């Protein structure tokens, strides 16, 4: 697991991930699977934020890493395209764009949608019978007590809270927002779980492992206000040409990763503190992908 060389060995595939829990999970799965099938893999996980990893791939320094379909909107500067709100369309669009422009191939995506969401304290959700964002909008508009902890980016970015507000017809006043610098769902979720400063709702990602543990309930986005973010392996075309079997190895694994599975696996890493490699290995063995 220790990567001590500055640059990859000539024939090993460089596998990277972003500095986050899910990236570590998916990245470790990729490393183990490839090695189990006899393909040399260079572990460069937890490399950096999205832009760094993406740049590294475009520069040919990284061969394979897990990326989200919705990020295509930013990569190709097409934020206003409605295709991003539909899972199938988003996948097809980013696959075509990256293939045509950068010779980068998107392999099969996991059926989970890890997008921005609003999570509510379970006791409040149950007491008020709120399960979806439509319910939430009604509740907020009729004067229900709401205080949302979110990052500045979530509050201001047109694709985030403003998109929800527009789609569901609600508006949160300044006093109903607790804005944090830095975009950490861990921080916002903890704030809601512990009712810090009266917070009862939190900005979240749908696959966050903390949600169940911290007794938070996700509000369903029935109107697809959010961009879809499905995780999929992204590989350089030339590398795939040399190792076409990689597609067959990764496809079944990713297709098996439902939202529930991802939430459980993320919970093991975040809440119980198990090592991502261990959690990944357990899942792969339990489902027969690894001996």
């Amino acid at each position, binding site marked *: *697991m220790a990567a001590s060389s500055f*640059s990859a060995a000539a024939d090993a595939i*460089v596998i990277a991930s972003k500095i986050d829990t899910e990236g570590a999970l998916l990245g470790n799965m990729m490393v183990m699977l490839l090695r189990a099938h006899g393909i040399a893999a260079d572990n460069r996980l937890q490399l*950096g934020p999205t832009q760094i990893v993406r*740049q*590294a791939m475009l*520069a040919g320094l*990284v061969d394979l890493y897990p990326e989200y379909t919705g990020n295509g909107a930013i990569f190709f500067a097409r934020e206003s395209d409605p295709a991003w709100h539909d899972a199938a369309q988003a996948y097809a669009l980013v696959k075509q764009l990256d293939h045509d422009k950068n010779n980068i191939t998107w392999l099969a995506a996991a059926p989970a949608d890890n997008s921005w969401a609003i999570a509510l304290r379970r006791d409040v959700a149950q007491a008020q019978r709120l399960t979806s964002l439509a319910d939430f909008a009604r509740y907020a508009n009729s004067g229900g007590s709401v205080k949302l902890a979110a990052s500045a980016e979530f509050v201001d970015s047109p694709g985030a809270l403003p998109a929800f507000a527009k789609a569901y017809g609600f508006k949160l006043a300044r006093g109903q927002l607790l804005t944090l610098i830095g975009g950490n769902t*861990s921080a916002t979720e903890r704030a809601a779980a512990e009712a810090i400063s009266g917070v009862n709702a939190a900005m979240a990602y749908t696959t966050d492992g903390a949600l169940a543990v911290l007794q938070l309930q996700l509000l369903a986005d029935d109107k697809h206000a959010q961009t879809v973010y499905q995780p999929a392996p992204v590989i350089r075309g030339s590398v795939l040409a040399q190792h076409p079997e990689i597609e067959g190895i990764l496809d079944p694994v990713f297709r098996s990763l439902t939202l529930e599975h991802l939430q459980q696996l993320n919970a093991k890493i975040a809440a119980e503190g198990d090592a991502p490699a261990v959690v990944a290995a357990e899942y792969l063995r339990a489902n027969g992908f690894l001996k």
Partner: protein
Amino acid sequence: MMPRNRVVFVLSLFAFAACIFAGFLTIAPNRLASGQSLTLWQLGGIPGAALTGACVALLALSFVPIARGVEYIVLGLAIAVFVFQLFAAGFLATGSLTSAPHGTRVSLGWAFWTTGFCLAMIAIDALQRLNAGTLARLAALAIIVAATALITSGGWFDGLSLMREYQTRQDEFAAALGRHCLLVAVAVFLAVIIGAPLGLYVARGPQRSAGTFGVLNMLQTIPSVALFGLLIAPLSALGIGGIGAVPAIIALVLYSLLPVVRNTEAGISGVDRGVIDAARGMGLTPAQILWRIELPLGMPIFLAGLRIVAVQAIGLAIVAALIGAGGLGSFVFQGIGQYATDLVLLGALPTIALALAADFILALLAGFFERSPS
């Protein structure tokens, strides 16, 4: 009745207050929740009484007239209590876990850090008052390091969340530590072999300093993350691979240049003009003057700059993790992302220890050259 040793008085008062009022350990049901803060007394038992008693003893000692014997007692007590506190933290943590559900996490609280800091300061103060030589300071440090190592290897720290974080990623930690040291070592080495000659060049012609320092000062003002990130694309275009490590080293070198150049120049220019004139007049060649006179005399100032550079680079290298260079920073950022404070500590504490070690070693080295002032 006024305390004779005001430093010890204030510090031991703080430590005492921390023992009574502040949380020593924080117990959380899982890694994500905030947890409940417990004071030494709530944790119960002998350790609490012993630690509080020791703080009171130190407080009392601050009223005793200052004498060498008293200072030895204070020093000994401070070191002993510091070590005991480490042990107590581990012991109490393990104790808290015995009947707790799986997944419970125990973290170190304010009282631990405060008393630890105060005790360390008391020990340093005692060493100062005793005019302790290098050997004595090394001995004190060695005792603490050895004790910590003993407690760790005996498994006494295993109850702490910090230790759990380490245990779930031991290989990763070793690799990160090694990578961190490598990044710093290579960067500092390059900064010296580029910066020292540059400093010499500037010292030989005072009119050169404005331009050189202008550029170097400007480099210092560029935010580190920006500089780290900016270098990836141009470097890969040149075919210099190495995700993150090479641009990280380049950025670290650029930040390290200013102190090296400035201190080399100051060291060389600071040599008494009369000494140089006498050396020339006596028939030493320019090379002999440089190697036998200017460099040895400039060494203390140069080493002072090297100390700054080393400590700065060790800290800056944390940011290198953001561009894939690895190092201890990867734990810091992972921990921030997961809101796992102990993971952040897993990255931050070794970094601080490294910086202190580098500072100590370089100060020792500078001491050898400081035999006679110019």
